[in-house]
């Protein structure tokens, strides 16, 4: 395995993290908080280590094959989280390193599950960094890397492929660098738009910025203990709309950027996605009708919760723990569905679900006409056999990993709903589940082993399983540990 190119990628990732850690320093200056020095020191450390890793020795061969792409991606995310967690721990705002790591992984993977009992006790600096991890993790740090750093060769698509969600990853334009830039331009522009709209609603600028970053990455870290419940109805509607938008396939936004608005609505995945949201809102609204004073309030809360859950954001304005069983089951089902491929959201993804359902339909049809041949069509194109196979294997792996995690954490003997939804909420990068981990709860009560399981689940969910799982393959582990990769680093 070409471990020197992996080292270089990791070095660049650390340098980027160092640069971004200067942003919380800026916040510290604004609010006059001492925590800024910790961030500055950690940023300096990351910069030095990153520079050493990229400069020590230039790699002879800069090609990244699929294996190197996956390993580099998985390790990048682990490094990113390991260093990103340091400030929380050093400032003492989170007592243990494993909790800091949980919080940071939850941030970067845009999960939004927290171990904090009192969010409001955190300094502005740390709150900002916590929300910023969502923003960076949403579109992906390697996509950012590809947008700014000239890595030669076309094989870098393997980095993007390992990091971007969805069954098949394509480029928007011929050059990977331009594609990555377009994605970040759309992402940045939409985030700014949301900040402006929230400011119009009279929200405090700090809240507007952090909440927008949380929405953009479909993360879910709030800055108040009550999540979004205490903001005005206008702000809640703005966040609802933007959560739904950030769950849309970014390729569709590229059509809007090109001025082809009609094409936006003709993307099959987007139509299914919007359809699922609309029907879920309708069904839940009927189910809980009467709980809230007016129909508008009901609609607002239902829309918010549905949008938050399907895009795997995890903000809440109401405690859906108290809703009727049908509504809760609907929401948990939506957690599995997830957002569109190529968005910042998590979950299994609408396109995978739709293709799997179409496979079932085709199989049923085969019972009626055993000799019939029918290609599965998606986005007006026949789905390649390879893609179908990959989706099926993905689903099986998802279920297997889910079952394994579920069994391990069940050892702690909490109630079924809590155990079940904790794994759902972390693997699909949502954040809150039901009962003890519901919108008003948190993950602090789990013991470190369960937390470790959740951390692996969050990373596996964000990186779509295989890039992370490949790290556990004995061949790759051996290559990593016994190659000169480690030696060069120390």
């Amino acid at each position, binding site marked *: 395995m070409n471990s020197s190119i992996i080292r270089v990628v990791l070095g660049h990732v650390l340098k980027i993290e160092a640069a971004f850690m200067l942003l919380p320093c800026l916040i510290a200056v604004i609010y006059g908080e001492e925590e800024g020095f910790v961030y500055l020191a950690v940023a300096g450390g990351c910069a030095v280590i990153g520079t050493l890793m990229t400069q020590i020795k230039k790699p002879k061969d800069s090609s990244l094959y*699929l294996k190197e792409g996956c390993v580099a991606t998985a390790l990048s995310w682990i490094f990113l989280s390991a260093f990103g967690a340091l400030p929380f721990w050093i400032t003492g705002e989170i007592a243990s390193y494993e909790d800091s790591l949980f919080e940071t992984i939850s941030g970067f993977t845009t999960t939004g599950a927290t171990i904090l009992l009192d969010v409001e006790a955190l300094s502005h600096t740390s709150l900002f960094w916590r929300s910023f991890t969502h923003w960076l993790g949403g579109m992906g740090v390697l996509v950012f890397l590809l947008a700014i750093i000239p890595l030669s*060769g*076309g*094989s*870098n*698509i*393997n980095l993007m492929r390992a990091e971007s969600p969805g069954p098949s990853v*394509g*480029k928007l*334009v*011929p*050059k*990977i*660098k*331009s594609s990555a*830039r*377009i994605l970040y*331009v759309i992402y940045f522009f939409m985030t700014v738009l949301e900040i402006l709209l929230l400011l119009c609603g009279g929200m405090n600028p700090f809240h507007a910025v952090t909440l927008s970053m949380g929405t953009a990455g479909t993360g879910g870290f709030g800055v108040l203990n009550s999540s979004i419940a205490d903001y005005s109805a206008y702000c809640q509607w703005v966040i609802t709309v933007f959560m739904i938008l950030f769950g849309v396939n970014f390729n569709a936004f590229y059509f809007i*950027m090109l001025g082809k608005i009609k094409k936006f609505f003709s993307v099959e995945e987007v139509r299914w996605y919007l359809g699922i949201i609309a029907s879920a809102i309708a069904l839940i609204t009927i189910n809980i009708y009467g709980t809230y004073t007016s129909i508008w309030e009901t609609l607002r809360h239902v829309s918010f919760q549905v949008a938050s859950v399907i895009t795997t954001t995890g903000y809440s304005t109401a405690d859906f723990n108290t809703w009727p069983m049908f509504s809760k089951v609907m929401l948990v089902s939506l957690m599995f569905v997830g957002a569109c491929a190529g968005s910042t959201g998590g979950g299994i993804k609408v396109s995978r679900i739709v293709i799997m359902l179409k496979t079932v339909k085709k199989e049923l049809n085969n019972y009626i006409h055993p000799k019939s041949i029918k290609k599965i069509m998606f986005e007006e194109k026949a789905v*390649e056999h390879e893609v179908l196979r990959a989706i099926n294997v993905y689903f099986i792996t998802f279920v297997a990993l889910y079952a394994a995690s579920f069994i391990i954490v069940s050892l702690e003997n909490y109630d079924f709903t809590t155990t079940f939804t904790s794994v759902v909420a972390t693997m699909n990068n949502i954040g809150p589940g039901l009962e003890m981990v519901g919108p008003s709860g948190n993950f602090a009560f789990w013991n470190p082993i369960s937390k470790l399981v959740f951390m692996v689940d969050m990373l596996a969910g964000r990186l779509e399983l295989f890039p992370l799982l490949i790290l556990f393959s004995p061949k790759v582990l051996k290559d990593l540990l016994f190659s000169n990769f480690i030696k060069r680093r120390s």
Partner: protein
Amino acid sequence: MFKKKDAEKSGMNIIIVGCGKVGATLIEQLTQEGHDITIIDLNSKKIEAITNTYDAMGVVGNGASYSTQLEAGIEKADLFIAVTNSDELNLLCCTVAKRAGSLAAIARVRTPDYIKEVDYFSEKLGLAMIINPDFVSSRVMARILTLPTALNVTSFAHGRVNLVRIEIPDDNVLCNRNIAEIGRDGITERTVICAIERDGNVFIPSGEFIIKAGDIVSFAAAQKESRVFLKKIGFKTNQVKSCIIVGGGRAGYYAADQLLKAGMDVRIIEIDQARCERLSELLPDATIIHADGTDEEVLKEEGIEDVGAFIPLTGIDEENVLLSLHAKHVSKAKVITRITRNNFKEVITELDLGSVIYPKYITSDAIIAYVRAKNNSKDSNIETLYPMLDSRAEAIEFKVEKESEVVNVPLFKLSLKKDLLIAFINRNGKIIIPKGQDSIQVGDSVMIVTTHTGFNDIQDILA
């Protein structure tokens, strides 16, 4: 928005239909030069393999269909290159593309029937270029065989000037003498030594450069003069009189046609009866032999031992390589080996295969020269730009359109950049090999050879 500017700066939007051998070579070289490449092919596996290796975007579909072309971004494309297997499809692709966007189109056309009508096609269909690798390679073969002591021969300025590569043997008159001395003796009176390859490096020689045995020297001269020069330095210059071609496919046909035109006696060995009959209709002057050309006895019977040149052109590279090695072993014939796939280039260069020809590089070089010239033409007056010696040096032809510091000044007064020389001046079709007192005039085309890159204007030659 941000992206558009980027693309304008860095290159053109190019659509390539077909990812075969030529297609893949083009993609490799054009992505390296920073162009935005979109490829179209029916085979999704091929598309995936290419997009995994090169920074290009792939579209699966029929390149001649308008909607596929739209998907590939035909509206913004600057250049459209069709290199699928089928001539008709290539022509149709280009015809559709020409209507869909304002772009230049290049098609690969290989069938002999169409090649005779190249000019008609280019004009009526508005094609920028029609390429035919087999035909171009056959021209190269003919040039090599008319000057068999050369390693290879490239032509410039519409065939008026040849660039000839020769290997200097031990005890040659040029050995251990510097360029200035050789010039004083009048050996290089109407030629210019442009580049010297030694131990894998390319040198653009100055007056003090000393030539050694084993150097590979490239010199430029008007067509007739190159033979005179070779005679002066003691090389044999008679052209090959007879040749054996194994394999009568398309490549064999084009080669035979060119060699017959050069006045050689051509024998084609072809295994297929029907093809033999067809060849005898097409090439009445050639001797067509219906036999297995890979049979040693057959080759011996047809006189491989005393033939002037031997060219294996079967459809299989491995077979051609073996035939060449065999020919080198049993005879003194000049051997030309054609390699159509790009695998194992290092090994191939180590084998004694005579002159090696890579049709797909010849083709892609021609297209890339066109692309560079087109890409440069916006803000420079480069007419053509030829990569030389595996792109380690470039030959650039400038059109001198206006007065400047370099015009009307005797060349010895100009201080030129290092590693650069003026190969020739083309003044209204008359080739001038420049001496110190010659000068560049407005209206000339000037060819320079250099290892530098990034030239835009003739003034860039000044130090």
